[in-house]
């Protein structure tokens, strides 16, 4: 549905000595298929809002091209519109809540009774009925955000773009927001959510794009967080019958998107996630192997294969891995499954600190 191809966006610096242009997005290529929820996370200035601006046609790319359903974003918007909540949602302060929603419903093309129905439903869903006659300028931050969500979801749009949707919401309304996103899910609806709240993104998203410095650092499958350390993906250079013995109940995994672990040659494991061999202290996170086994390679026949295994703890994993190695298997990679998104982002952005 959404395609960014080699997109770069540069904000020119205002004239003045020492001012440099800002590269908000740097050669980003991304393809988002229709359907599903995509989260966008990253540090401040990573390019999330700029990316949304390009997708919605508010901004033009400095280089590259953006397409939504094969159309230029502005053309797509004129034909189909989009549901949009900006990072800093504002409406003219003298408008009342009810009038604001009616007006925006009118701009959606809704008229008369159907406009009023939609507005009433939106106000009920986001608890705005008691505040219908209040001026927008008098709303608290949380209420303003709820109004923002209400106006974004007034019409039925295939593209939903929400920038920091839970900013200022209390815990109850965060839950209700999640319910709203769950209701919106559909094969034909693509939802993009940018947020600094990693836990929130993890709960609602299917895929998470980690942006840093204007580049896509990583795209992560977001699985429900499991207890850290109980599930692992083990990638062998080639299928091995020794797996069934070393890890009874191991399941061959399919599909891409596993977060990559770090293989270090020799030495003691270090940092969170390091899995040690017998004799080394087990620390979860990074797999450490003797040099001879560090480089993945495919012996005769089949290519790499990944297994999902479950163990009680890292120590058990270490023991069973040793058995696998002794049986002649070539282990290329070991990564924990169900690691919280926060840990994965931390590791991706600051590997040194993560160790």
């Amino acid at each position: 549905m959404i395609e960014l191809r080699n997109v770069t966006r540069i904000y020119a610096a205002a004239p003045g000595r020492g001012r440099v242009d800002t590269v908000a997005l740097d050669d980003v290529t991304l393809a988002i298929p229709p359907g599903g929820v995509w989260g966008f996370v990253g540090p401040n200035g990573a390019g999330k809002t700029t990316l949304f601006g390009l997708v919605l046609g508010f901004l033009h790319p400095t280089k590259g091209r953006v397409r939504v359903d094969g159309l230029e974003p502005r053309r797509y918007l004129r034909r189909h519109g989009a549901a949009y909540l900006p990072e800093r949602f504002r409406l003219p302060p003298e408008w009342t809540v009810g009038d604001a929603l009616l007006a925006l419903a009118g701009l959606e093309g809704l008229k008369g009774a159907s406009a009023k129905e939609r507005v009433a439903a939106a106000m009920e869903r986001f608890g705005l009925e008691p505040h219908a006659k209040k001026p927008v300028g008098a709303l608290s931050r949380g209420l303003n955000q709820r109004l923002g969500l209400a106006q974004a979801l007034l019409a039925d749009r295939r593209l939903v773009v929400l920038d920091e949707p839970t900013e200022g919401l209390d815990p109850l309304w965060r839950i209700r927001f999640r319910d709203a996103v769950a209701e919106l899910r559909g094969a034909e609806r693509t939802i993009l959510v940018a947020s600094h709240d990693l836990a929130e993104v993890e709960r609602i998203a299917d895929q998470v794009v980690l942006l840093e410095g204007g580049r896509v650092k990583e795209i992560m499958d977001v699985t429900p967080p499991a207890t850290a350390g109980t599930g692992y993906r083990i990638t062998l250079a080639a299928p091995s019958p020794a797996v069934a013995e070393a890890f009874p109940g191991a399941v061959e995994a399919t599909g891409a998107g596993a977060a990559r672990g770090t293989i270090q040659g020799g030495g003691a494991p270090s940092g969170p996630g390091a899995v040690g061999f017998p004799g080394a202290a087990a620390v979860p996170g990074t797999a450490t192997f003797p040099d001879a086994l560090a480089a993945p390679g495919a012996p005769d026949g089949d290519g790499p294969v990944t297994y999902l295994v479950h163990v009680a703890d890292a120590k058990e994993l270490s023991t069973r891995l040793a058995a696998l190695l002794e049986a002649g298997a070539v282990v290329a990679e070991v990564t924990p499954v169900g690691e919280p998104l926060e840990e994965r982002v931390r590791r991706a952005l600051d590997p040194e600190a993560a160790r």
Partner: protein
Amino acid sequence: MNALVLARLTLRDRRKRILALLAFAGLFLAAAATARLLVSDTDGHVNADQLFLIGGYPAVSALLLMGWLLGRFPIIATLVLMAGLFSHDRAEGYARLYTVRAASPLRVYGTRFAVLAGVAFAISAVLMPTFDLIMLGTWAGPATLVLILSYVLVFGGLVALLSVWTRADAWIALLLAVAALVWDGLRSAGVLAQVPAGARDVVTFLLPPQAMLYSIEEAFGNIQPIPWDAFLYVAGYGLTALALAAVALHRREV
């Protein structure tokens, strides 16, 4: 997109400015009525000589200033109402909320422009003839409306074009209006004879068409036939500015 909804919102957004203009107009009319009560001739004119006897130079100066300002009221009303037409919405983020709604920005801002131009015209079209009726016992006829329309088109178009690029749209338009006044004065006085003709013509063409507006004003002031060629020129200037604004808005980042 519902044009009526948008029109209503536009009026609501500009409510304070409209009220300020109405208050300003009310002040003019109150002053005119006061002058009329104090110093009117038997034929209904306000007599400036009598006003001088009552209030001296300040009173007469105030009357003259009011008359001059009144002639500029359509510009004032247009600049006040049109200021920030697009630039304010863009800066506040409202423009994006409109743009995502399958509503063409041209239709949205075209509608807003039409509504505000209509309000500027309407207030001026009531104020100016009423003031003349009070002060002079008569009014200049349809030339008044043509004059008002000329100012609204020229300065409305200019503000609309500038608003696509800058938040100082009305201020720059005002500066250009003053520059046009000065330029026209210098040109009429022959001071610009030294300037190469090409450059002189380009500047004259780009600045608001003050000479044409003057000729319409003269017709208004002297109750003469309307100079339609001058009106067509000023209307063309305003509509060209609007067309350029539309092209720029179509491409402008929101």
